[in-house]
Structure formats: structure tokens, C-alpha cells
């Protein structure tokens, strides 16, 4: 009995004080830490990949007239980094911030606004300009002077009508 009490006391004495002076001194994070996701608004092209994989579905794309908003609600983030994994533009990384507590819910939201491009046929805004530019670059291999295909500037509906017309033409001929 007494022996074990001695042993216990010794363990405590040997360990000494182990608590950190947090929050007066910040607690460093490990390399590769998954803290608050940081979205770089200058790189984001509004493709929505991050919104598709986010498990708590806290990233949403809202199209309003000639702008698309990428909205992030950090209050439900699970710091899984799936968004960062899939972002084709490396516009998201998980930073070192883990102190998100706040009394203002608005502090936990973030919005990226992207300008939409208008359809060259009907004039309706249909996709972010940056997304189209990036897609164009990908299609042409980013070669200088290479023109992006014409259909890239058509909205999905116009593309469909065009396609239907083209097909319709073929069919009509077949019937003759």
C-alpha cells in the first residue's frame, strides 16, 4: 500500500509540470496540420469541385445574374481537406488556424465572388469567366495564339439547340 503510494508520488514528481502556457503563448501546430481551410479568391475559378466532395456540404455555389458566389460556412467544417485535395487550381489549402471560436456567426463565413461570362449566342450569363478561360487553356494546351473552340462561349441550352439542329438536319436528310 505505502510502497505504491510512494511510487505514485515519484511518478508525479518526476513528470513535473507539463501544462503549456496556452493561450498566452500560442501552441505550435505540426507540419501538415489541417486547420481552417483558406480559399485564395484570386485563384478560384468557380468550378465547384470542392462543393461536390465536401462531406458536411458547407461549400455552396450561388449564381445570381452576372456573378457566382462560392460560399463557405466554416462553422460546420470538419477539416478533412477533401476540398484542398480536389481543387484543380490549388486555390484551397488547410492553414494553421484552429482558434475559430467566436460570438459572431458571420465571422465563420467567407464568400468568393466571380464574374460570369455571357453566352455569345443568347447573351445569358452562364459560367464564370475564369472557368471558361481555364477550360480554353486546357483544350488548346495553353499554346499562345491558339483559339479556344467557339462552342466554349455558348451556354448549355444554346449548345443543346445547336446540337439538336445539327442532328435534326442529318435525320431530315436520312428521311428523304
Amino acid at each position: 500500500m505505502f510502497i505504491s503510494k510512494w511510487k505514485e508520488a515519484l511518478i508525479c514528481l518526476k513528470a513535473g509540470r507539463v501544462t503549456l502556457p496556452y493561450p498566452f503563448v500560442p501552441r505550435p501546430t505540426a507540419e501538415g496540420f489541417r486547420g481552417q481551410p483558406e480559399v485564395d479568391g484570386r485563384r478560384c475559378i468557380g468550378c465547384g469541385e470542392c462543393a461536390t466532395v465536401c462531406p458536411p456540404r458547407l461549400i455552396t455555389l450561388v449564381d445570381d445574374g452576372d456573378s457566382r458566389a462560392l460560399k463557405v460556412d466554416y462553422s460546420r467544417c470538419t477539416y478533412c481537406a477533401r476540398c484542398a485535395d480536389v481543387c484543380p487550381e490549388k486555390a484551397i489549402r488547410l492553414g494553421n488556424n484552429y482558434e475559430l471560436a467566436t460570438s459572431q456567426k458571420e465571422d465563420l463565413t467567407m464568400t468568393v465572388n466571380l464574374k460570369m461570362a455571357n453566352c455569345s449566342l443568347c447573351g445569358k450569363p452562364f459560367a464564370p469567366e475564369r472557368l471558361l478561360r481555364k477550360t480554353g487553356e486546357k483544350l488548346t494546351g495553353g499554346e499562345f495564339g491558339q483559339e479556344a473552340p467557339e462552342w466554349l462561349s455558348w451556354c448549355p441550352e444554346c449548345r443543346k439547340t445547336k446540337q439538336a439542329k445539327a442532328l435534326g438536319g442529318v435525320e431530315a436528310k436520312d428521311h428523304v
Partner: protein
Amino acid sequence: MTREELTRKLTEHLGKALPAMSTAGNMLLVKIKAEDLPTLAGYVFNQLGARLITTVGTDRTPLTGNYEVSYLFSFDRADLFLSLKVEIDPANPVIESVTPVIPGADWAEREVRDLIGVVPKNHPDPRRLVLADDWPEELYPLRKDFPYDYKPPQATVAGPRMKKAPEQATVMTVGPFFPTLEEPAYFRLFVEGERIVGSDYRGFYSHRGIEKLADTVLDYNKITFLAERICGICGFVHSCCYCQAVEAAAEIEVPARAKYIRTIMLELERLHSHLLWLGLAGHIIGFDTVLMQSWRIREQLMWLTEQITGNRKTYGMNLVGGVRRDIPEKLQPKIKEVLAKVESESRQVVEAIAGDTTLLMRLQNVGYLSAADARSFCVVGPTARASGVDIDSRRDHPYAAYPDLQFTVPVYNEGDTWARTLVRLDELFVSIDLVRQALGRLPGGPIMAENTEVPPEREGLAVVEAPRGECCHYVLTGTDRPERWRVRASTYPQLQAAPSMFANQTVADAPIIIGSIDPCFSCTERMETVDVESGKLRVYTREELLKAGRAGCKGGDSRA
């Protein structure tokens, strides 16, 4: 027992051919007639010695027009699972209860009734288990025609569905919020003087409808992260078990390196969990030195997992088909260094407290659970192994890298709180050794399967030995997402055995008895809604208890 032997025995017992049979991995799926269920289930459990894992209720009306209820059994030493599946006509959704034969089926059958609406006839405790008492009657949230975001109007409650205390007994409540329980749980202890003569339990306050969310809104990989958040302590177990269930269903070949990384993380998680438990157990009985020291030792593991995974908990490592982060070469010396420190420091603590008579007096002969009760309530993990039931899914149903590793399974026969402590203390050192072995043999190669496609209409069952015992995930695949995902956490069976452990104990020991099963209430509850009161385990009558007391406090289960 092999699959063929089992099929032969079932056919012989039934006296006629089994209607339909198929296999999925190491699971034998047998479709049976509803009227044959009690006899077959009883035969499998009592004569063939299988253990009931859980039941799964599925609404298959869009496809077959029926409901289905599967009773999942495990033949532990044979690495064989058996699913007895019954189809039920929605016009008459009634099934004969097997709880009178298998006490451990109690909650699982009530859950199927609450969520799917298949009523277990002659169930000894027909009260609600999962749904809140103010949830409307005849509204079953896991049915396919129930929208996941529907909020029904509150029903008027006739009164809380609590068990009446025996006459002369005083009711003492522990919970729904109680200092030593971090999660809501409501125990009502019936006491005479200082003795507990019966008990009642109401839980499922943390039920949040995740299974519904999974089969309506999420996709296969999103569920991995939701699964991880089922538990704040053994979250990796859940994400791993879920992935393994999908991988089993889809026959996805997980690369060896990913399997080893999963094993390493599983064992690191067990280490931190057991040290956390030891501290809490110390705290419950007022021995805070143990709390401080074991949590100090544990903290090193938390820093280590932060370095490996990017966070001290909720590692976010798993995806269907493998893991997302590698364990780089440069981290391995660090892991070994932390293991060495944790090992020597834990040894010192274990040696010191092993001779502490105050501690022994609080834990020995307290909260006794007989081997017979452990088996009939189908308990798992350290709680089972402390009552002489030698089961461990790492050895019995080897998964991840466990088939390649050598380890012992500590088993004690005393069945008391001290035995449950010893099992966990021994397991600390087994886990440290397992991480070392896995690191030593860590194979090279990719960490994610190439093809992770999941075909529809396949069933997959996976078990993972969580720190608290076997955790089970079942998946029936659908298009883009599971058609059904069922989670059975390890505390689910243990809580059903709690009344047996309370029997004839003093009130002062109740918190440590609850603590000794290392309960994880939110894990157990998952899913949907919040609750008022009701639900129970079983109440001992005075006579039963007196008899039990005379029989050396062995529970006295009249149903067993």
C-alpha cells in the same frame, strides 16, 4: 465450422431445404421464412454457439415490395458470418421476436420496430428505444418514402415510458447529464438502502439520423468522414470499418501499404483510448493522480497522431479503397521514440497502481458480469474478455494487416471491474508491440486502390476491434450511395448487460460500473431525433435478485 457444414446443419435442423442462399466474402446469406426464424436463430445461438452481432432492417419496397430484416451472427473462431434474412410483407409487418431466446437481440429488434416499423411479436420490452416519446406513432424514419428532412409535428405524450420501481425501493437517477458521463444517458437506479435492486435506462438522446442521411443525400466517400465523427475517441475505427464494409461489398483490393497504415492508426487509437479510459476510471473513483498521469502519457500520442495525420483526433485518413496520407520514412523514428516513452511510463503507472489496496478495494468484486450473461447479451471487447469470453475480431475475423502480425489476446475470468481494468492495461502493451511490428514490416507501394467503383445491390459486412470491443458496419450498396448503412457500435451490446452488472451493488459503485464498460453513448445512438424519457434494459425483481445474490451474485437471468 465451414460454410458447407453450416449449410448442412441448418438444413438438417430445419428438416427441409433452405429457400435461398448466397455468399458475400466470408458471409453466408440465407433467406428464410419468417416462421422459421425463432427456431433457426435459437439453434444457431444456443447449439452452434454463434454470437448475435446485430439486426439490420431495410425497406426494400421500391425493389421487392417487402421489408427485410437480417439477423447477423458471427462464428468467431471460424471467421464466418451468417445472415438470416426474413422478408416481411408491408401489409402485416410483424415478426416473432427472438429476444426470449437471445437476450442480446433486445435493442436491435426494438430499433427495427422504431425505424422501419417491423413489430417484434412477444418482445419482453415493447417500449420505444430510439425514437423520442413525442415522435408520432406509425411514422418510421428509415422507410424509403420518408423524406430525410421531414420534421413531423410533435405528438402529445401520454407520459414518460419508464419502468415502475419495485415497491419500497427509492429511485436514484444518474443522468441524463452527469458529471462523470460526458454524454447524455439516463440511468434510473432502484435502491433499497445502499443496494441497487433494479435499474432502468433511457438513452438515444444523441440519435441524429446519420443512416438516413447516408442513404438519401451523401455519397460513398462523404460517409467515411461522417462515420469518423460517430465517435470522438475511436473515430478511426468507424471510418475504417465503414470503408472495409464497402470494400468487402464491392470486392475492392486495398493495397498492402494502406492496410498496414490502417493497422498502425487503429492501434495508436487504442493506446490513446485505453489511457483515456484509465484516467477517467481513476477520476470516477476520486483517484486523480491516475487521471493526471495517464492523460499526461496519452498526450504524447495525441501530438504524434497530429504529426502523422494532421490532427490529434479525427484523423481523416480513410477513403473507400485505401488511405489518403502516407506515413513518411522520416516520421518513423519519432513514432518509435514516442512508443518507447509511452511504454516505459505506462509500465511505471501500472506497477504503482497494481499494488494500491485502495484502488483494488474499489474495483475488485464490483460490477460482476458472469460469462453466461456476457454471452447471452452478446457483449464484446474488454468487457467480454474480462468475463472469460475469448473473442477479439483482430484475431477471429482478421482484417487490415492483422493476419501478418503476432499478438496475444488477454483474457480474465473474474468478470469484475478490476478484470476489465487489467484487460485494458495488458492491451496497452500488446498495441505498442503491434505498432512496432507493423512499422517494421511496412510494405512499399501505393496507398489507394486503382479501381474503387462500387456496383449496386451487393452486401458487405465488416467488423473492427475498437478499444471498447467489436464495432460493426453493414452496407447494402446502391447507386452512388448505399441503399442501407447500418452501424453497430461496441457499447450497444455492453449497455444491455449493465443491469446485470448493477445487480446487488452499492449505489456508490454505480458510476464506476458504468465507467468500467468504457461507454460511448453517442456511438451507440447515431442517427436521428432527440428524446424525452423511457427505454430500459431489464428490471430485476426482488426474488430474482435474492436468488442471484445467493448464487454468488451471478445475475439470475430468467430469460437465458
